[in-house]
């Protein structure tokens, strides 16, 4: 029986409470305790970026974060970008550019792109490629993904 802790944090703007085993990852908490499954589990070791979330304004791999460490922090997941202006623009650009193939990497790509563009609003294509270097697309559809992010950054595809 593992030790559990009750934690409180802000999730997509809403104060949230959850009871979690102390060994649990933030990703497992989001998917299995809170029930938000937009954040994807793939490699589980920080190599693929499918589980990217924003914590206190910085994007991180939620699979590497302990859920208990979310205490008193602000989390934004792909679900929280629905009503976010930049999130909406990215969603639209991904659709228009055909940047979604199987779709599994898409939530992580969009969350990472949002966080990167906030810090680098006029990112060049090379800077966008650097920004998503921690996100893998197994369909290898990178060109259209970069096209979509570049369109939002005001760059010609």
């Amino acid at each position, binding site marked *: *029986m593992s030790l559990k802790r009750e934690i409180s944090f802000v999730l997509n703007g809403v104060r949230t409470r959850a009871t979690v085993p102390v060994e649990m990852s933030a990703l497992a908490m989001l998917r299995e305790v809170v029930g938000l499954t937009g954040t994807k589990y793939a490699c589980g070791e*920080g*190599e693929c970026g499918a589980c990217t979330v924003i914590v206190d304004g*910085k994007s991180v791999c939620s*699979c590497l974060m*302990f859920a208990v460490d979310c205490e008193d922090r602000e989390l934004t997941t792909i679900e929280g970008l629905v009503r976010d202006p930049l999130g909406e623009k990215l969603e639209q650009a991904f659709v228009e550019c055909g940047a979604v193939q199987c779709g599994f990497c898409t939530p992580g790509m969009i969350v*990472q792109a949002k966080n990167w563009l906030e810090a680098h609003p006029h990112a060049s294509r090379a800077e966008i490629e*650097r920004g998503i270097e921690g996100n893998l697309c197994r369909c290898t559809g990178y060109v259209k993904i970069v096209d979509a992010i570049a369109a939002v950054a005001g760059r010609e595809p």
Partner: protein
Amino acid sequence: MAVEEYWAPTALPAALEHLSAGEVTILAGGTDLMPQSHAGRVTLKRGLLNLRRVPELHGIERDGAVVRVGALCTIGELMVDPLVRAHFGLLAEACDHFASDQLRNAATVGGNVCNASPAGDTLPPLLVLDAEAELASKPNGSVETRRVPLAEFFVGPGRTVRAPGELLTALWLPVPPAGFVGRFFKFGTRPALDIAAIAIAIGGVRAGRTLTAARVAYGAVAPVPMRARATERALEGTPLDAAAIARIAGVARDEVRPIDDVRASAWYRRELVFNMTKRMLDDVAQA
């Protein structure tokens, strides 16, 4: 053993008290601890100690001729910090080569040091910059600290001189003198999210075509990230013409002690050390 206690203290003395109780796993950024514990390579101990909320472990501040870097600073914070960029450019460069944006936002410099991987990205630059590790403990009711030169900190893969009751609280980096030049090189098969096959850091004070107070460190070519003392002696004060550079790079090739593994053969690592040391010294000579 299952975790029986979890602490997230908000001051250093409290953190050290938890640590002195023994059987404690330290959590900083979590980027190594989480996958290692899930894969069973590390077993979480009785107590889990989360350091994130300890203010003494954060911040980068200049104190006279030395800069104190809190152990909980993330790689991303180091990479963009004005003091780091102004004085420790090769460290900022190593941070830029570190994993990916998401990992740089979470991984801490203290974690990189304490995990003591021979391939840790920040370690060759920190060695060249003469960094010292500040270790704190609370053995008899009061906080005690000591400083250990990083060159004496690593004793084997994943092993350091840090005692179980000690916490790495900060790194102290002397501000290099005027004329200091530093270079960093990391070789991997792709730019992002790669573990170094080899890494090289070189630093020294340039006077004409020579380097004095020369420092050379290598990663992923020995059981620990290593200062290359013989290479440093060969480099010290030597006019850097083509023949001298080739000779110094040859000393480096003989000095490193690489192994064969999945990332590269020992032979290939030695060739890389020779060729890249040569190229970096050429670059320093022409700077």
